[in-house]
């Protein structure tokens, strides 16, 4: 579904954020991307939909190669990639409904979107999604009136209404409390399952990642250090990704969490 070939990103400052990353994500697979700050997790996600331009290498989404696309063609391909952001990135002064419908901007013309006259099918789908995440009654509230967890759920609706094939998720739980974090992760994973979406979830919380995903990629200094099932994250592996630290507590906590969750 998604295939990265020798993806390199070098910033103008000379920092090598990504060093020839190769990666294949099959359809329907939810994958977590872990690694210390500055390992290139955000850069990797943004290089896929070219919010950050990769320096070299290729990104294949299905049959289409993205890095060589013109801006018009890139826009059409971006519709197939929903993105969920750290700190939600909702447009705060727009309503919940406008935020969700902004996911359809790639499909409707300028005047339609300017006059907020979206096709009925889009509006219906927006209500369906909002209802799915339990926020249908909030549709006309302004985005900045919502709590953190609610905002992230609106962010999820905005990504899903694009009808994407792939979700790019950048630190979805970074500013949420532990309980809300789990609810959001659970919701993302459930929705991916319902719609057979592939997802790359960039996440700091190793324990949380282990609880929900099928595959973990460990990134260190812009290179893939670990690729495997979440059970494979032993203290040695974590040391190789993050550096020396006592990892037993992290891993043990996961076991406790899983018991508690059930």
């Amino acid at each position, binding site marked *: 579904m998604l295939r990265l070939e020798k993806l390199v990103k070098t910033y103008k400052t000379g920092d090598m954020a990504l060093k020839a990353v190769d990666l294949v994500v099959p359809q329907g697979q939810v994958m977590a991307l872990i690694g210390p700050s500055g390992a290139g997790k955000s850069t990797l996600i943004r290089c896929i*939909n070219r*919010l950050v331009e990769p320096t070299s290498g290729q990104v294949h989404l299905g049959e289409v190669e993205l890095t060589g696309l013109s801006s018009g063609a890139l*826009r*059409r*391909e*971006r*519709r197939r*990639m*929903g*993105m969920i*952001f*750290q*700190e939600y*990135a*909702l*447009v*705060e*002064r*727009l309503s919940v409904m*406008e935020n969700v419908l*902004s*996911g*359809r*901007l*790639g*499909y409707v013309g*300028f005047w339609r*979107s*300017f006059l907020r006259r979206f096709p009925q099918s889009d509006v219906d789908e927006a209500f369906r999604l909002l209802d799915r995440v339990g926020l249908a009654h909030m549709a006309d509230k302004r985005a900045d009136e919502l709590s953190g967890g609610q905002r992230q759920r609106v*962010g999820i609706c*905005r990504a899903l209404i*694009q009808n994407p094939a792939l979700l*790019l998720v950048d630190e979805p739980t970074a500013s949420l409390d532990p309980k809300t974090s789990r609810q959001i992760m659970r919701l993302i994973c459930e929705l991916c399952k319902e719609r057979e979406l592939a997802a790359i979830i960039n996440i700091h919380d190793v324990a949380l990642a282990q609880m929900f995903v099928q595959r973990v990629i460990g990134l260190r200094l812009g290179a893939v250090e670990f690729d495997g099932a979440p059970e494979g994250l032993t203290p040695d592996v974590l040391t190789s990704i993050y550096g020396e630290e006592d990892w037993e507590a992290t891993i043990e906590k996961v076991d406790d969490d899983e018991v508690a969750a059930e």
Partner: protein
Amino acid sequence: MSELNILIGKKWKKPPFIQRVWLRWLLIMGFFAYLIAAYMTIDVNWARVYEGLERGKQFVLAFTSPDFASRSTDIWGGMFESIVMTVAASVVGITISIPIALGAARNVAPLPVYLICRSIIAISRALQEIIVAILLVAIFGFGPLAGFITLSFATIGFLSKLLAEDIESMDRVQAEAIKASGARWTQWINYGVQPQVMPRLIGLSMYRLDINFRESAILGLVGAGGIGATLNTAFDRYEYDTAAAILLIIIVIVMALEYLSGVIRARVQ
């Protein structure tokens, strides 16, 4: 540990902004020397001031008996002209400013467009209103047309610059999220940028309306129409009571605009 022992018991002071002691004192001394020298060049003719006080007194006293009646046709005519000039110039100026502001924001526009728009702003800001008005009066003749064009031109420099700065300091991630959905550029501006800068745009527009009205009173002095022309005539004829009436009306209108802009800004937050 020994490093800490040296620090304990020592006074702490904020490091000075200028590290070199001699440079710091040179700048301070230089500043005061300049100040004293500058004051010594001011030449006051105290006898003239004493004479002038009498005229000043008359002027101030005129405010106790403003004369709205004897020149009322001129006053209302001039006032009407000023208001028309202000509103028309604000609408035209703001309409032109918005695209220029978008072009002058580095995070929205490509470099060539940015440089062109910044140049337009620089030219508009470099030319003072009075100078532009004198030039335009020479071209279009006496009357409000020159004033209208002057104010529109000045509005562009003011509003575009401040709006562009607001666009440049917007939250990048909110706009990025709209871009990631595959929106076109126009949709991106409409959904990602416009909501973020709208309160500032409205606030600045109201403020500029206020400035344009006050400027329209000045522009009359150089023949560009409006209430300023009436005011100038009143001064020339030593009709301080009529001048006082005009000034009072200007003050009332400016205060009303100030109040209105406060109400509107509270609404759009």
